[in-house]
């Protein structure tokens, strides 16, 4: 009876928290819906004059195969994308462009005619008649150019929300397990505990109300934090990635250029913004690299370009129902980016990096697996994503701690990251592979759950692993 009452109490608390969470979600979504009516559309910051970028969204190529595009959209579970409407608008744009081209041709002919007439010293009255015609054409041309700009902007705004190409290797319905390491049977025991309980019994974690889902790691947990950053970043650098220290806030068009909605970042409060530009606080992310490479012309000699960034990462949107630190607002990350000249090279890098990450995490000697995520879990910018997942005792499931994605030329087209050199190279686009190698908050929470907690005695022992010995040897 006591047990049943206890369960009821816990269930009641969970229900209360869930209803509060649902209320927040509903409020957020209703606020978002209201706000969406007033907020600029997704991509508008990239398309504004302030970004100084004219993105190439390759709309024509996407619309050339509408069935494939539709399949892509459906597989990803995206809503509110009307391909037909876009196609109609695009058709209209091409028509206006043809009109403009014809007018350009006609104006050129008239100008040549005027030049010839002047040379041949033909009567001024005749020249003037031609000039009047030319002036009329110019006005017509200006009107058409304005129309073209307007419809081009509309087309781009509609097309901005289109997802990246879907790789043929991406599973559609369910995840595809590529490799499994370690057994989860030994971990499915009754005395599992969560990192939240570790926080209650020890001083290793302190949850606090001083900030947005704030927490502190102290002593061994904090030292583990630094060791993990050092361990993973050193190994990535050893593979030839150039380390960088990057800024943590970005102008809004950089975020949107990466396919990220502004709501996914903390927004800077006025007046620390330039006129009409919003600063977004995201920390270490794909935006770190995108900001560095925006409007950069890259020579073929520089490829493959391999960069690594380490630092704090912030995320205010908590759609996840994972408890505690698994969906914390702040973490530290080790991320990497590879820039290649072809898609094939990107996929080759994608495969190599999967193995690199798998080898690094195997050193932890805990059950893990490598999977390909299904299409409906991909970000807009991703063609394919592989995730490294670790068995999490409190959740009794695998939890993602690292990932590698092929971004193709999604970001380079939107943020004008261009090749420069021989004409053939310059006419192509640059392809990217992005990796999140380490998420310290998540990983530490999982590692703590693989330790041993004596709830009665209130004592805790971190898990034993050779990797921790390596930390002591690493200077």
């Amino acid at each position, binding site marked *: 009876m006591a047990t049943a009452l206890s369960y009821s109490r816990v269930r009641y608390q969970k229900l209360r928290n869930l209803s509060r969470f649902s209320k927040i979600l509903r409020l957020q979504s209703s606020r978002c819906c209201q706000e969406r009516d007033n907020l600029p559309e997704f991509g508008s910051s990239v398309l504004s004059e302030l970004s100084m970028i004219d993105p190439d969204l390759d709309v024509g190529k996407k619309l050339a195969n509408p069935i494939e595009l539709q399949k892509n959209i459906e597989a990803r579970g995206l809503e509110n994308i009307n391909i037909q409407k876009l196609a109609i608008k695009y058709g209209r744009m091409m028509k206006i462009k043809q009109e403009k081209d014809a007018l350009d041709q006609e104006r050129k002919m008239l100008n040549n005619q005027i030049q010839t007439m002047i040379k041949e010293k033909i009567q001024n009255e005749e020249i003037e008649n031609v000039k009047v015609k030319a002036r009329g054409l110019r006005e017509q041309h200006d009107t058409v150019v304005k129309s073209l700009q307007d419809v081009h902007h509309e087309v781009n705004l509609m097309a901005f929300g289109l997802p990246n190409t879907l790789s043929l290797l991406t599973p559609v319905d369910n995840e595809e397990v590529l490799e499994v390491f370690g057994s989860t049977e030994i971990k499915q025991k009754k005395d599992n505990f969560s990192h939240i309980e570790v926080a209650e019994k020890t001083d290793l974690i302190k949850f606090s109300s001083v900030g*947005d889902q704030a927490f*502190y790691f102290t002593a061994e947990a904090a030292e583990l934090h630094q060791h993990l950053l050092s361990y993973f970043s050193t190994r990535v650098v050893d593979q030839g990635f150039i380390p960088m220290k990057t800024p943590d806030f970005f*102008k809004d068009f950089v975020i949107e250029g990466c396919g990220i909605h502004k709501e996914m970042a*903390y927004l800077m*409060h006025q007046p620390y913004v330039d006129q009409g530009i919003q600063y977004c606080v995201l920390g270490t992310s794909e935006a770190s690299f995108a900001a560095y490479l925006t409007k*950069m012309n890259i020579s*073929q000699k520089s490829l493959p370009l391999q960069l690594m960034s380490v630092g704090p990462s912030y995320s205010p949107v908590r759609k996840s129902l994972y408890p505690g630190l698994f969906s914390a607002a702040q973490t530290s990350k080790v991320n990497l980016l590879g820039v290649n000249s072809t898609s094939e090279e990107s996929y080759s890098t994608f495969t190599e990096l999967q193995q690199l990450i798998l080898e690094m995490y195997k050193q932890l000697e805990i059950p893990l697996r490598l999977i390909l995520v299904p299409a409906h879990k991909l970000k807009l910018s991703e063609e394919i994503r592989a995730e490294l997942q670790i068995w999490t005792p409190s959740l009794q499931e695998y939890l993602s701690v690292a990932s590698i994605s092929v971004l193709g030329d999604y970001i380079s087209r939107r943020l004008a990251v*261009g090749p420069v050199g021989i004409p053939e190279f310059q006419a192509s686009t640059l392809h990217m592979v992005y990796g999140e190698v380490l998420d310290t908050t998540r990983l530490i929470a999982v590692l703590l759950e693989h330790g041993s907690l004596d709830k009665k005695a209130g004592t805790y022992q971190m898990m034993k692993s050779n990797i921790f010995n390596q930390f002591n040897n690493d*200077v």
Partner: protein
Amino acid sequence: MRAFQIWRQISKSDFTFCKSKVITRFLSSHPVPEAWTRPFDPPSPEFDWLYLCDDKNRAAIEENIVNRKGVGDINQVISLWKTFQKEKDVAKKESLLQQLNEAASKIPNRTSPTSPIGSEEQAECKGLFGTKREFTFKPQSVMEIGKRLNLLRTSDVGHTTGPRTYYFLSDFAKLEQALIKYTLDNILPQGFTLVSVPDILSASVVEACGFRTTGDRNQVYKLESNRHDNPLCLAGTAEISLAGLFMNESLTTLPKKVCAVSRCYRAEVSRLEEEQGIYRVHQFTKVEMFGVTKNQGGDDLLLEFLEIEKQLFQNLGLHFRVLEMPTQELGAPAYRKFDIETWMPAKELWGEISSASNCTDYQIRRLNIKYRETNKDDGVHAETVNGTACAVPRLIMAIVENNQQEDGSVVIPEVLRPYMSGQTHLQRSPLRGKLTFSKGKHPR
């Protein structure tokens, strides 16, 4: 039979029979951390009314306010206090208390009798350390060296990340990590506990530490508030987060010495030529020391922090001076403060690389941090001390400029070499080819 099996599983808290992982997660007993379920409730400040409202102290407090740039009105505090004492009506008393707290919060901390009075020029040099290097050639600035070796990018960055932003590449990024590890390896054995801190904090916590979050000239970045319950800010220093760690705590063992590596965000601007480049930036990494100690123990802990800082910088081979800061440079919370400035040869100026302050009970009274002596029930206000162990960009500036050679190479200080795989000199970035910024609107 199946229902009985399910009932047995439920009684053992095993919900794996659920096909839905979401429901399984919901049913398992892992509550949300309690601290995250309640809104931030700042503690009520406990001002020293006996001291503030004693007429005998009025003149001294007024003089202190004037010496510290004149913020705060003690006459208003005393007047409100007298009215508060006489008021009988509960509601009016409540309102008066709010006004009283607000007025009292503006009164700066007391000042150490050793602090010089006046502006920055009155700072007293308490010691000169290291040897000033005499150059036989014109030393380059860190900007010039960084650009030449492709280790630093500050040009054409404002377009995407705003003014005063920078990228460290390759060996500069490694140097940052090396400085952090070197600093931690030296301070942790001295009784410090490492803490990972939050960078996004409630405005109330920031204000309680003596940093203004409102008004034109505050340095604190604030975040859009319409999506959060409390106004949120980016921490300008880990001092705030570390003070927040001890908020509402009743400590039994002192001193508590903690340190943190954190990203610091400051909106400060400067039009001075010498502060361009990476000297004054909006975002940087810092290792901060923070301590809580017994009443009257602040000065001893401050001097201990100062010794640690001096040792760290001496080992790096820097030429620096220690300054006891005058009253106008103390800010609101500091009772006593020491700055360390190192010689920057390119600009030929002294640049601040560290600051250490004894805040006595200023932050303590606002964050309700007390300590309890054994066998006593009442808590007593403690004191807090903070100090910069490593502010990365300026240290890199100092190290690179002071260690450059005539042939253009830059020697890495010996103490940092183990943290850079034994490298003795900075190497040019391995980035091949050219990356050039496209000015103007980029067409495709």
